[in-house]
């Protein structure tokens, strides 16, 4: 990342990284709280000064490799201990696994399993390890296998599963004990497009049932499709967090919103628009039937556009923002590294 981008990131940080302790107006029992959390692996930075309050719904952790996504997830589940600060998940400190994992399920990225078990044995065994009585464990195992469409393969050894099936059996294991918080590290890896779509639908259904879902992914359009909010990470820092459009709106000063207007007289429209202060840049589309406009105040811009259209000189076919999505936010804040 260049120095300019880094400076920009730091500014973003200062603006958004308000200490979690100051934002505790949200219910402690229903949120995941990172309070000034840092994690170092020796001298190597994992994450630094993370302050987050994650409410229910689907939250995606997004960032390049090494950004700190998995570290954050491992901190949330007590697989790692913070060097500084503290993490609580729905009010439970992460060093109390006996309480934490009654409420939390974690589908990690480790594609490995205890040796010699079938899918059904794998899920029911670890339900029993959690203290679930045998009959209930068997019932919940069936439900979990059914939810991920693995019932027919339940009695096969996991060693004989395909990568996608292994991913699904891990997902089944993570949801089998009916947690209220589900943490998923790259859960769509290895799934074919059909199963991917079904899995996203399952995530939405779980979120609709009131579950917290924390998902890490590097496939931006899928994150865009399923997330209520995103946490953008880079080099161990939280670069931005919030609803995707909210984050985009906050970036208007440094990265004006780009809008494509399809119309019959784009040069006339450009001339009209430049009479106002709202447009900072206008560029003709390659096919000369559209105009890209950059504005720092989209709401005001749309009002002006209405006025221009009302004058009857220009016929507008469509108006659409072109960088009001996660990919653009990612590109602006993190860049293509």
């Amino acid at each position: 990342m260049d120095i300019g981008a880094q400076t920009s990131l730091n500014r973003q940080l200062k603006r958004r990284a308000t200490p979690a302790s100051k934002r505790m107006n949200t219910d402690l029992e229903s949120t995941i709280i990172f309070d000034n959390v840092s994690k170092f692996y020796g001298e190597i930075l994992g994450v630094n000064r993370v302050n987050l309050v994650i409410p229910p719904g689907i939250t995606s952790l997004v960032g390049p490799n090494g950004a700190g996504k998995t570290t954050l997830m491992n901190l949330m589940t007590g697989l790692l201990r913070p060097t500084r600060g503290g993490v609580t998940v729905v009010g439970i400190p992460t060093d109390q696994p006996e309480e934490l994992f009654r409420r939390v399920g974690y589908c990690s990225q480790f594609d490995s399993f205890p040796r010699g078990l079938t899918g059904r044995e794998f899920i029911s065994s670890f339900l029993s390890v959690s203290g679930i009585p045998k009959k209930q464990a068997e019932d919940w195992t069936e439900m979990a296998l059914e939810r991920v469409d693995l019932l027919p393969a339940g009695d096969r050894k996991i060693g004989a599963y395909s990568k996608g099936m292994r991913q699904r059996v891990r997902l089944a294991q993570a949801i089998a004990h009916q947690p209220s918080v589900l943490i998923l590290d790259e859960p769509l890896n290895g799934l074919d497009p059909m199963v991917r779509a079904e899995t996203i639908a399952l995530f939405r259904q779980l979120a609709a049932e009131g579950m917290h879902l924390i998902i890490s992914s590097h496939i931006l359009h899928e994150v865009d499709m399923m997330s209520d909010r995103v946490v953008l990470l880079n080099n161990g820092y939280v670069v931005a967090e919030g609803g995707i459009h909210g984050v985009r709106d906050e970036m208007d000063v440094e990265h004006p919103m780009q809008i494509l207007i399809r119309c019959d007289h784009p040069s006339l429209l450009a001339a009209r628009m430049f009479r106002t202060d709202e447009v900072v840049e206008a560029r003709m589309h390659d096919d000369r039937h559209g105009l890209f406009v950059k504005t720092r105040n989209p709401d005001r811009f749309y009002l002006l556009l209405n006025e221009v259209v009302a004058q009857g000189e220009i016929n507008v076919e469509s108006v659409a923002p072109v960088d009001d999505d996660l990919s653009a936010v990612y590109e602006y804040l993190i860049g293509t590294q």
Partner: protein
Amino acid sequence: MSSTAETIQPGTATRRESSWSLWLRQILAIMRLEVKKNFLGKRAVLIYLLALMPIGLLALIAIVKPADRDWIDFVQYPKLFSVIYNTLILRTVIFFGCAWIFMNLFRGEIVDRSLHYYFLSALRRDVLITGKYFSGLVTAVVLFTTVTVLSMFLTFFPHFFSASTRFFLDGAGLGQLFTYAGITILACIGYGAFFLVVGLFFRNPIIPALSLYGWEWINFLLPPLLKKVSVIHYLNSLVPVPLSEGPIAVAVEPTPAWISVPGLLIVTALVLLAASRRIRRMEIRYGGD
């Protein structure tokens, strides 16, 4: 994905009950998983080979009787077995067998990258230590007590069947058999706790294991106080047929059973307590391991 499955209600898993009955159920669940793995997993092959070593050797001796004087005189047999037990079974088979079984309880799972499934269960980590330890203990006790008993029978019966029958039914044989079995169980308890901790604390457990092996072997040379900082000293104090440790050995009175047995159990409990403290702070970073 199925949409027909019953809707999962978050949080319904929480059900309070007596902690002890919950922990007991969790320990039994861990033991079911681990004992099966210990006996049937690929890593069990080495244990079976170790266990077969004295049995194979004694079976061979049963077929080809040595011409040595000791093997001709039945009176020498209890002493003969004591030597076999002390050098081959206790110091080799049980020591290395326990090292392999107990170190792999955690180290093996770290190598396989599957320990996190336990850490992600609603389970106190000290309960995990207890469950794993007892699963290792069950495996070691079943295997090595069987080896001890079979080895004793294979030493006595093939050469002097009727004398051996009398020795076991009317003489001291049965008492000695139970004592050796008891020493085997105590050895599994003591060495097991040590090796479980070694597997938790050390990335390369071979060096501490070999260090203990050396320490146990030079025990006869150590001054009386240092002798007591070992497992073998207490086990040797219990053997029914004491052996001479040689002319250069530092002579010391055997520790009475009423001290050595509870002493070993107390030290084992302390070692497991240290393991419990360690595992509470343990992180899962397979890459770093």
